[in-house]
């Protein structure tokens, strides 16, 4: 299954990636070969097989509704490139 350049542009747009023409060509080929590889799975008979929701046979893992103190603000914000008034400072999105 070969991906078109248009499809690559669409996926890049969703991922907020800016690609030049050469890159689009390269990724179209690479992504296509990945999809081709995964498509091998279609050869398996899966009639009557439930779709898998989780890889482990584990269900209902809960925590009780109890509060624990969070992380101190200085620590949680320590890696943020820009901080102001105890908040992450980011470019405005309209």
């Amino acid at each position, binding site marked *: 299954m070969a991906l078109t350049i248009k499809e690559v542009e669409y996926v890049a747009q969703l991922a907020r990636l800016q690609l030049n023409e050469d890159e689009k060509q390269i990724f179209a080929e690479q992504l296509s070969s990945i999809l081709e590889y995964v498509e091998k799975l279609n050869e398996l008979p899966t009639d009557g097989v439930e779709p898998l929701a989780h890889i482990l046979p*584990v269900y209902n*893992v809960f*925590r009780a*509704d109890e509060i*624990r103190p*969070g992380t101190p603000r200085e620590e949680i914000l320590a890696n943020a490139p820009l901080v*102001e008034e*105890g908040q*992450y400072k*980011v470019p405005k999105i309209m």
Partner: protein
Amino acid sequence: MSKDYEVVIGLEVHAELKTKSKIFCACSTAFGAEPNTQVCPVCSGFPGMLPVLNEKAVDCAIKTGLALNSEIAEFCKFDRKNYFYPDLPKAYQISQYDLPICKGGYLDIDVEGERTRVGITRAHLEEDAGKLVHQGDITTTPFSLVDLNRSGVPLLEIVSEPDMRSAQQARAYMEKLRSILLFADVSDCKMEEGSLRCDANVSVRPWGEQKLGTRTEIKNLNSFRALERAIEYEAKRQMEALEDGEVIVQETRTWDEGKGVTRSMRSKEEAHDYRYFPEPDLPPLRIDRDWVDTVRKSMPEMPVQAGQRLMDQYGLSQYDADLITQSPQNLKFFDETLALYADAKAVSNWMMGDLTRLLNQNGMEIQDAKVKPALLAEMLRLMADGTISGKMAKTVFEEMFVSGLDPQTIIKEKGLVQISDANSLLPLIDEIINNNPKVLQDYKNGKEKAFGFFIGQIMKATKGQANPEMVNNLLKERLNRE
């Protein structure tokens, strides 16, 4: 013009669930804390962190589903909804895509005496995003600030079928849903704090047309009034556009409360492709029927049953019953007052009239009011036995609302006691008639106004304290003897 078109409305409601801690971590959900003081690596989206589901959030979802007549899924799972926005630290929201916890259901609304059943499509659990605060003037500042206290607060998104046909119906649905969530005790439902939010899908189509028109989604509806106004505006806008031969574009629009208009929000090229896939960090849920039954048995009286009780027991109208059951606190106030003063219509009139008006004016909730059921009951008793008139009662009520003092004290302090004693009123009536021979002549000549003049004079002489009904009767008797 609106005669030629039908409006079709569906609502997506987000209710913050009333848990102490967040849905996937142990941070507090309390509202109003300093920015980023209720956060941890999980709800801040640090790499490698693992979410663990809050059991209470699932309980709340089951409760709501039962209250909305939904089917509770035996098996459900979580999925990642992928999009980029600064208030979403992981760049995906944990939500439920193809296997929501609640499927189907309905709720009934009554508008202008007509009952409509609004279908519920689904309700699913998800996490809330953080909050973006624009710094300085929103139009000029190049920055926003991000507070993640709200990130990870549990939400239940309740999606309705497009079953509503007017803005009033949409409002009634929202009010009914709010009362159900309040009675089920699963959400605070404070629209002004954002714990209950609503998006409206609105389309119009020519009458008789079966196919739905192209819809727009309106966001930023944070009051019942905004919801109603925005839908009215948007429906009119779409009808006018169609009349002018334009095509409706499927888009997201925002409600501008100040200007009273909806505005297009997003650029065309932005794709709504969330690339959902199963959340590998959360094992799925198996909700066995015992669990559902346990929750069902713990369900308190719901507004529908409470309303029916009020109609059956006290003969209240559907309208009054709906108003009284808009919140459990409201119903409690009614029930407690009625236990002390058994005139349901009078209690309901005062609650829905003066009490609601004063609460709204002061931005208060009924449970915070200084007027308590015992005070209202006592006031109604004083009114019934003629101690105070209806007009005086209004003054007494306003005073009780402000001070919380008992009506007896207020009556004494303000000198509000009604004169219902014929022996003290009769000499006064005589005096006034004797002092106004010309008006008396007018009355004899059949001038109706003359009667009103005498009443006015008597009320004036008694500073409004005379029992109006008694004055009316005594005056009539006295004049008939002339």
